């Protein structure tokens, strides 16, 4: 079979009937389902993207769980537990979606703790203050929503459907983050400083979550052709900033970009230059918390090994017992 880089339907290309059907489904904006034929590149690209997303949810639990035991009110503690628990749930749906493509959860987990799989670099930043619970919700979850809403229409069915559910929950997460910052900004001088300091630290990393500029994004063109991805990195980043500016005004926080200004011509907010060196440093493993995040995941996995082994052994004994009873 020939797996083409862009679906090529010209008369000269030799493609199989299955591939033609696949191309037609993509062209018609229909959904590809697990048992449908798909090009190997499409399958690999999806497994990469979905497992990275799942890993991001799992590693993303850490910076927030850091504050569960210290949340400053019982209401906030309950909300934070619910939110981090949602992230574990998202990880589970996404691993399941990747499993429909033939990936196994064990392999994906092993790749993560061996440091071979990628996850969103944003979670390699630390959460030294309570206000970071607000900034993560408002900025990080906000950026995630801009990225993820278009994925609800991703061509691969199980992924698109998982994303519908995830996006609903993410929008609550963003709202609660905004509310944390709103409360801080209406509070004492120390609380306002805590909020502004946190926004200063998370703003640029959140913008980098959309990925490199379009002219430097190797996987984007193919993903867009296959309709896994629907908008370019720069388009989504711009949409996000346009959304943030009025929200920052409501909060009373300053976005830490002195060059940010409204462009009358394009009716968009033009932003200053993003420092991509930092992005590449964090991506290369030289961020503030890369080592700590992986170590914590590996420790939890290793320390829980005896529990998982016990569950497997128990299930095996139970099914042997059931079979014995059925035979007697």
């Amino acid at each position: 079979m020939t797996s083409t880089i862009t679906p090529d339907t010209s008369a000269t290309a030799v493609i199989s009937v299955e591939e033609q059907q696949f191309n037609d489904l993509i062209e018609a904006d229909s959904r590809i389902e697990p048992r449908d034929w798909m090009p190997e590149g499409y399958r690999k690209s999806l497994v990469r993207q979905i497992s990275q997303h799942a890993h991001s949810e799992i590693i993303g639990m850490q910076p927030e769980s850091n504050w569960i035991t210290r949340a400053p009110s019982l209401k906030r503690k309950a909300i934070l537990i619910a939110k981090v628990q949602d992230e574990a749930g998202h990880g589970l749906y996404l691993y399941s979606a990747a499993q429909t493509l033939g990936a196994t959860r064990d392999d994906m987990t092993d790749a993560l703790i061996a440091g071979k799989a990628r996850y969103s670099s944003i979670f390699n930043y630390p959460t030294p203050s309570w206000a970071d619970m607000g900034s993560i919700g408002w900025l990080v979850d906000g950026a995630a929503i801009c990225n993820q809403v278009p994925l609800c229409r991703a061509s691969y069915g199980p992924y698109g459907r998982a994303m519908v559910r995830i996006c609903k929950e993410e929008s609550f997460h963003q709202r609660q983050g905004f509310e944390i910052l709103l409360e801080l900004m209406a509070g004492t001088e120390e609380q306002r400083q805590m909020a502004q300091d946190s926004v200063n630290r998370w703003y640029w990393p959140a913008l980098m979550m959309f990925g490199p500029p379009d002219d430097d994004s190797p996987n984007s063109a193919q993903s867009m052709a296959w309709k896994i991805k629907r908008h370019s990195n720069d388009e989504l980043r711009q949409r996000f900033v346009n959304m943030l500016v009025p929200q920052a005004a409501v909060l009373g926080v300053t976005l830490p970009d002195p060059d940010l200004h409204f462009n009358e011509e394009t009716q968009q907010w033009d932003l200053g230059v993003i420092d991509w060196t930092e992005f590449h440093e964090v991506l290369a493993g030289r961020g503030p918390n890369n080592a700590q995040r992986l170590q914590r995941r590996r420790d939890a996995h290793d320390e829980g090994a005896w529990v998982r082994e016990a569950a497997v052994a128990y299930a095996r004994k139970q099914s042997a017992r059931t079979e014995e009873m059925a035979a007697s």
Partner: protein
Amino acid sequence: MSDDIAADAPAAAHDDDHGHVAVDVTTLDAELIEGPSVATADVAEYALWLGDDSLILAQQLGAWISRAPELEEDVALGNVALDLIGHARSLLHYAGTASGRTEDDLAYWRTEPDFRSLHIVEQPNGDFAHTIARQFVVAHYLFELYSRLRASADATLAAIAAKAVKEVDYHRDHSTQWVLRLAQGTDESRRRMITALSDLWPYVEEIFRDDPLIDRLGGVAVRPSSLLPAFDAAIAPVLAEAELEVPRGFVASGGGRTGKHSEHLAFLLAEMQVLTRAHPGASW
């Protein structure tokens, strides 16, 4: 063909009808906020007993999230912690009506001797077997307690118990399943389960100890000693199936109900209260 990925996902966070607190629904139940009920000093003290048990246990379980042996347990322990925080908020809110304090005043601005928690909930998480052993004991106790407290002459306590009993029924099942798996899984898990039970058992007796407060709250409070036969009857078949014996060892002196605590509580409170206490008067 996978028509709905959610249906394939194991133990999804929202598939069950218990334990989930949507992050946009954060107020206390209407009967607590709108009801005119103000607790008497004795009822408030009793509500503190129960509220502190739930709060301290929730605080401990919250520390598991992102560290559990598998993702499904991050979700499950998170669910249990959320339920318990819900119970704690209701009970502390009610306790506070007697003295004009809020749930947060009580959770964050009391010091150790003013807490009323049992020693068993103060015991550290330990390994997963210790956490499960603690859950197994406490969930079975709470189920028997709330089952009876539903008939309390105090309408607010009865309403809290009616809601809580459904949730702790699930906690009971969750811990029971794990006691069976760990006791009959591998040699290592069995060894750990036996150790955990014997480490926790010295703190069981305190749960069922009566106090003069109970005499003053006839018809309102549940007499702790009256729960022991039902508790024993409920755990006996599980321990039998798991081929575990009730540990026979020493009994700890306890004293949580009068403010005498284990060494662990001060550390737990220091962590829980650190941010709030750094900003007196702030709202969050």
